[in-house]
């Protein structure tokens, strides 16, 4: 599996089939109650991003390959920054959009279906950029 389409399809399958109660329980056992991580970025590592990038209210953050919104939604909630989430698999972004609504982040988070190689933003749009194990 190597093409962008195959990788996107693999992630779409993961997002569609791993959104159950038992998966949430496994995530909590690995990372704690406040996290919804599929990969390897712990809450402490998310906090380190906030510290190193100086995230705070008014800062515009871009998360490339945002998946289901960990850690960019967590960072928006914790620091007050504005987050834009960009990724290719629609099911992951849909899950992130739903979580954003549940967490009351609607007006500070945006979602863009786009590859990191072709982002539809002008230069200097963002104050900070992250990605976490994105391909």
């Amino acid at each position, binding site marked *: *599996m190597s093409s962008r389409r195959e990788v996107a399809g693999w992630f779409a399958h993961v997002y569609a089939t791993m959104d159950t109660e038992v998966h949430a329980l*496994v995530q909590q056992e690995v990372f704690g109650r406040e996290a919804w991580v599929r990969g390897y970025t712990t809450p402490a*590592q998310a906090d380190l991003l906030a510290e*190193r990038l100086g995230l705070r209210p008014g800062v515009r953050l871009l998360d490339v390959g945002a998946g289901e919104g960990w850690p960019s939604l967590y960072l928006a909630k914790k620091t007050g920054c504005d987050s834009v989430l960009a990724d290719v698999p629609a099911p992951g972004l849909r899950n992130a959009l739903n979580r954003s609504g549940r967490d009351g982040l609607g007006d500070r988070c945006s979602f863009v279906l786009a590859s990191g190689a072709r982002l539809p933003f002008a230069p200097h749009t963002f104050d*900070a950029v992250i*990605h*976490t194990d994105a*391909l």
Partner: protein
Amino acid sequence: MAFYTIYIPDGLSQTEYERSRRAGAPGLASLGRSQTELLRSAGFEEIEEIDLTEEFLRVARAWGEARRRHAEALKAAEGADFDVRMRDNRTRVRAIEAGLQRRSLFVARRP
């Protein structure tokens, strides 16, 4: 800019490289140039790498252990994917233990 990335370290034999590549998520491959070189060539400065491979191994093991504790419920939810994911987890843990995969935080600034 700050990002976490899993990568194949330099200096592996071809056999080790192939083993590392097979132990990753789809698409994982060494770029043949270090992340630092790539960042510098893109105009970034003040580049810093923080090695988090030890924590990467801890989390990879924790995933496998938690999934084993909930194996029956996960099998019901995932079907045949359960065994594939468990096998992938074991392969990844062994690859990290063998020094075939690393994970770091890179922080860089653009002037």
